[in-house]
């Protein structure tokens, strides 16, 4: 492209038992949007942490504007013009926008001046934001704006963005991209980390692909198909999930006018939710994170009880039944949060298999545990879903996120459910494993189970589901057939841009 801004040469970082980065080298040009691609665990996070001064490389060097660059801490990186927007926001709900931004500054100016600067930067880049609103009242997209503006106030030369679109509706993504394009036109370089290959194709000039800590290739995303990029990431040919001809059977599970108050101050109340799912159907539920997904899963799994008639299984009221009773009837669930909710981190995989498998797999008789059968069940899940682990005796937290996700989904799928509810089934899972999980859900539906798939990955929902509905602030839209549904329509079902103005750049 043009001149080189930052050049990485042979960066290596090893953690006990794993080499996170192995002699990674590439250049980022001035005014270039550079994509960093790779599966989970490929070493993307470690690499950007080294650039941002959070982690020190074991060997290798970096050159920034022809001068050696080795930040000892993020403060040094920021002083050199490197800024980063993290995937998880670090904002205080109770403070307003300007106060949150002031907290991250070395020498915050007086509040009135700061507010003025926030206003001017936000308008300049098409990210309207009121500096005096409390962060707790902002949508996920607006919170991200706070983080971006916090970075832009430093006038960065390189902006690092870690999976910025996972919390945005399609409309909000478009606003973000306009901002990023404007930044680029002003000469700011952007290092963009994402799983979403179509986004990268539309936004990025150049892509570097990491696999198992090594730089395995580069490409120009515009000239490369998403499938080719995915195969470079995985290092193998991809198998697309196949959907067989599906006939919808009778209604398996339905929710009638369900309202549940928010479980905590920062939870979401469910408001008058109604849905039906038939045998053999996959119902996709989309929506931006934090709009009632967790709450809906809890109501279906039995962790939160409701009036008996609000949840019906084959016409029978189950709203008052606890998770164990529902499992007995064939209603299984796999929550989003793997560690601490779907699985106990410090317990072995055998114990975690027992966690939900005790009833349906006959792992207990009158309360006495049959450990050898529990171990057998754990081994069946490990074998059936290609979970990479030395054995069922290993603790859940020793598994990588993707492997644990395969275990959690496999544990429920192998129990032969009548109704399966999953939340974010392929979150943080590499492309090959995600395809395997989606295939398992499709196979389950083909066998006559009803599947409710809650996800923020719209491509995933379009790929596997028969009908689509969206959650927005605890309300569920009317389901629509996925045949012929457009991205714009989906965006509107998800609440459009959450009242955010479209940028006028």
């Amino acid at each position, binding site marked *: 492209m043009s001149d080189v801004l930052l050049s990485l040469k042979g960066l290596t970082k090893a953690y006990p038992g794993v080499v996170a980065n192995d002699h990674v080298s590439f250049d980022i040009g001035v005014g270039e949007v550079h994509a960093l691609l790779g599966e989970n665990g490929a070493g993307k996070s470690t690499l950007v942490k080294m650039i941002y001064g959070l982690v020190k490389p074991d060997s290798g060097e970096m050159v920034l504007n022809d001068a050696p660059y080795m930040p000892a*801490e993020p403060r040094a990186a920021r002083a050199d013009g490197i800024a980063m927007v993290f995937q998880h926001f670090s904002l205080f709900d109770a403070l307003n926008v300007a106060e949150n931004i002031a907290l991250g500054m070395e020498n915050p100016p007086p509040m009135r001046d700061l507010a003025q600067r926030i206003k001017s930067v936000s308008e300049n880049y098409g990210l309207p934001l009121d500096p005096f609103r409390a962060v707790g009242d902002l949508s996920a997209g607006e919170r991200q704006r706070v983080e971006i503006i916090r970075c832009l106030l430093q006038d960065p030369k390189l902006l690092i963005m870690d999976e910025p679109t996972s919390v945005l509706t399609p409309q909000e993504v478009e606003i973000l991209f306009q901002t990023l394009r404007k930044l680029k036109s002003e000469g700011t370089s952007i290092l963009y980390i994402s799983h979403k290959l179509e986004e990268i194709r539309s936004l990025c000039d150049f892509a570097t692909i990491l696999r198992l800590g090594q730089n395995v290739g580069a490409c120009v995303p515009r000239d490369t198909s998403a499938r080719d990029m995915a195969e470079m990431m995985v290092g193998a040919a991809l198998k697309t999930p196949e959907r067989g001809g599906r006939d919808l059977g009778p209604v398996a599970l339905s929710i009638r006018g369900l309202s549940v108050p928010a479980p905590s101050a920062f939870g979401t109340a469910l408001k008058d939710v109604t849905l039906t799912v038939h045998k053999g159907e996959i119902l996709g539920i989309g929506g931006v994170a934090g709009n009632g997904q967790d709450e809906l899963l809890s109501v279906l799994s039995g962790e939160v009880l409701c009036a008996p008639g609000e949840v019906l299984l084959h016409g029978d009221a189950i709203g008052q039944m606890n998770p164990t009773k529902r499992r007995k009837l064939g209603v299984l669930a796999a929550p989003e949060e793997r560690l601490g909710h779907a699985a106990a981190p410090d317990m072995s995989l055998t114990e975690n298999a027992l966690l939900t498998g005790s009833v349906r797999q006959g792992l207990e008789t009158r309360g006495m545990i049959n450990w050898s059968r529990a171990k057998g069940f754990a081994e069946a899940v490990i074998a059936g879903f290609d979970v990479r682990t030395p054995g069922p005796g290993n603790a859940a937290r020793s598994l990588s996120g993707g492997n644990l996700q395969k275990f959690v989904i496999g544990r429920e799928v192998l129990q032969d459910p009548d109704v399966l509810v999953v939340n974010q089934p392929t979150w943080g899972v590499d492309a090959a494993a995600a395809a395997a999980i989606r295939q398992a859900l499709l196979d389950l539906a083909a066998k006559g189970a009803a599947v409710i798939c809650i996800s923020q990955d719209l491509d995933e929902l379009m790929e596997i589901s028969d009908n689509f509905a969206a959650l927005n602030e605890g309300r569920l839209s009317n389901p629509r057939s996925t045949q012929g549904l457009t991205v714009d329509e989906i965006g509107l079902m998800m609440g459009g841009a959450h009242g955010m103005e479209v940028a006028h750049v």
Partner: protein
Amino acid sequence: MIGLERRPQPSRAWSMATPLVAVLATMLAGGLLFAALGKDPVEAIRTIFWEPLFGEFSFYYRPQLVVKGAPLVLIAIGLSLGFKAGIWNIGAEGQYIVGALTGAAVGLAFYPLESVFVFPLMVLAGAFGGWAWAMIPAILKTRFGTNEILVSLMLVYVAEQLLASMSLGLLKNPEGYGFPGSRNLQHYDSAHNAELIAGSGMHWGAAAALIAVIFAYVLMNRHMTGFHIRLTGEAPRAARFAGVSPTRLVLFCLGMSGALAGLAGLFEVSGPAGVVSIDFNVGYGFTAIIVAFLGRLHPVGILLAGALMALTYIGGDIAQSNLGLPSAAIQVFQGMLLFFLLAFDVLTNFRIRLGAGEVA
């Protein structure tokens, strides 16, 4: 710089080794303490750990070990169930007192009837008393969300007042010439928790402690209830997802630890102590908390820890009388044991890294 690094999974070896390392570190630091007090450290440590077991008067001290250790183990086993689930019963001392009171009251009510049914009834009453006292924090917690640590602890002081009132009033020996304290149950055959083998110190309390160890082992390792207890302690949300009812678990754990503490109180009052008196309780309920943690909340570990704790008590007494060590020094010594245990515990989940520290 020294840093700590999280292990990918807890180290089994360190989990087993920390109690031993903690005991050795306590000996070392305790030795320094005793040396600073002007005593021969080797002699002091030898007196505490060796004298009761193999010394000249060990024939007297060995049964004492059983008498001291049994209530500690019995109470600690009960506490460990709740502790594993993150339910903190700090008031075992109160449940111990109330169990002793209800058990003794049943025995005294039958006086002077001699029957084989009296003692079993007292055992039931003792367990019931402790259970009922523990149900107060349990029900307040499940109904109103109160903190069981505070409520159970405060109830200890209520129980102490109750004990004083009972030994001065309702349960006072009518033939005791006005002195406080009840009839001596040791002199009432049907109610006496006598040694099962004369001179061994083995009474029904020790037998109950051994049974409790086996029961707890089976419960925690082979039964769904034990699995749910551990699950709740490790990941409360996962436990709810698995179908555990937090309310029932609180009632079970507090009830169980209360009943076992009540049993310990009953066996003590009907055996070694004999009488309900104002100074009946000597802190077993609190020491049992240390025993439970020293034993890593594992039934067999608790058995060993109870024995070790009884040893430091008796050894400490000997050191006080033989070497003139102040009793505060012995208490510091016992405190060190828990301190070092918790400190070395870090190594189960973390390993030490020498070299440049790093933020990550």
